[in-house]
């Protein structure tokens, strides 16, 4: 409190002294000769003081208002979070418990094929839960500010291949990646970067029609590792483009199955590595995500191999 009001008090004193220096005779000294001028000086000081205190009060009220708005915004975000999460987590849990109930009820009630399908459902639900928990953990790592990128030499061709392999079991798209033999090694956080690419690809597989192309391109451009993921879906409505990286934001009328966290994690992990990201619609249709992460490179041309 004292430290907040101190600056305004100081300003009041200072302005009174300056006023004395320039306007009370003898001019350009701090001296005051007669009683009338002393009174003038004091009066000016009091006015400056009142002015300062009032300003302080107003500022305080404004801050309170802002805090309240902030709190309301946070509350709204929190309830969106709860809605989204409880749906995203409870759906697979419901699938698991429901399947188990039927399987427990009796072998004669469900055909062997039905049983196999229920077991598949449990597996799918487990994987979905695992992915959501992963997303939530990543998000909280970002929010807590505890996320410190660990840079190490990374073969981006390999990273892309590994990521694609992870998606293959459930994939229904043409994932196209042409390995680039001229690519140097990049010094970046391979874990974060793999998650960025995985989330972009997973997002594309969720929201574009099956059997369409999803192209991955990795380049080295002006001290940056550039990752481009382009799909042949419907693209994004122009006015939504700035919003899609927001936490829990989901395009209106999108189908179920996402938490609205995937792309905001892409943004967070990119920015954590001082990178930038861009989303645009391709002229011929479809969306194109571009990630640029500044990174040291190594071509290791002089490596002895004998």
């Amino acid at each position, binding site marked *: 409190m004292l430290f907040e009001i101190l600056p305004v008090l100081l300003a009041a004193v200072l302005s009174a002294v300056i006023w004395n220096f320039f306007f009370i005779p003898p001019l350009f000294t701090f001296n005051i000769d007669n009683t009338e001028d002393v009174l003038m000086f004091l009066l000016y000081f009091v006015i400056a003081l009142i002015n300062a205190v009032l300003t302080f009060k107003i500022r305080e009220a404004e801050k309170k208002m802002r805090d309240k708005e902030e709190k309301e915004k946070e509350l709204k975000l929190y309830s969106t979070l709860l809605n989204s999460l409880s749906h995203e987590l409870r759906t697979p849990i419901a699938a698991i418990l429901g399947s188990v109930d039927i399987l427990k009820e009796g072998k004669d009630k469900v055909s062997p094929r039905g049983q196999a399908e229920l077991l598949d459902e449990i597996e799918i639900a*487990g994987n979905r839960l*695992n992915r959501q928990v*992963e997303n939530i*953990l990543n998000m909280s790592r970002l929010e807590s500010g505890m996320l410190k990128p*660990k840079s*190490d*030499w*990374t*073969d981006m*061709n*390999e990273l892309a*291949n*590994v990521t694609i*392999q992870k998606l293959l079991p459930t994939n229904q798209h043409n994932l196209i990646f042409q*390995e680039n033999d001229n690519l140097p*090694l990049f010094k970046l956080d*391979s*874990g974060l970067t*793999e998650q960025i690419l995985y989330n972009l690809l997973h997002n594309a597989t969720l929201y574009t029609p099956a059997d369409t192309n999803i192209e991955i391109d990795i380049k080295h451009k002006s001290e940056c590792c550039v990752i481009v993921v382009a799909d042949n879906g419907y693209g994004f409505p122009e006015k939504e483009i700035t919003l899609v990286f927001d936490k829990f934001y989901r395009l209106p009328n999108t189908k179920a199955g996402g938490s609205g966290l995937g792309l905001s994690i892409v943004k967070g992990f990119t920015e954590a590595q001082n990178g930038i990201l861009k989303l645009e619609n391709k002229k011929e249709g479809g969306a194109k995500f571009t990630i640029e992460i500044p990174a040291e490179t*190594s071509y*290791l041309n002089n*490596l*002895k*191999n*004998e």
Partner: protein
Amino acid sequence: MSKAEILIIDDEPQIRKLLEITLESNDYKVSQAETGKDGLIKAANHPPELILLDIGLPDKSGHEILKELREWYNKAIIILSVQNNETDIVTALDNGATDYLAKPFRTAELLARIRSAIRRNQNTDDNSVVDAGDLQIDLVARTLTKNNELIKLTSTEFNIISLFARNEGRVLTHQFILKDIWGVPYQTETQYLRVFVGTLRKKIEENPNNPKHIITESGVGYRFQ
């Protein structure tokens, strides 16, 4: 042959139950400990063939248990860790863990790791020839054949393959490999490793984009199989 005994040290009853059923139905004998302290006592009283050790125990850190066990126990210890905790995993491997599994893991993965770890327990005599599917590595003659065809390797490349072959099925950390091949001053020069693994894959893998022999363990190291 009597059944190999496995000691599970994990505080979660659900995980213990799951492991117990999985392992017993695959012909292993199972003993369990709920705390690190109890685990140390059980291991000492009746040394098992393999220990599954959870890193996140409530009473004592799994890392400490691992260090204490390693003072006298030289058979396989597989670490159970949570996903995405590479620092924990690398520390445990550097402290003598044989291998690791990240929760949630799948049964096939668990059994493969256990089989390979137990095989290494029993197979202490040095085999001069290592078989890995279509690859045959002769450690003495320093040759590598793929489908009976000789593959030309540089000396460094062979050193790496030979290190991998002697530790087949086991994850090796980047640091460990660098230290072994290039020496201590190079143990952080991971770019060397990336380049050599890349060229090796081109020589030995059917499909270098989807390697079957030299597997990348993200943030940890490589596994040869």
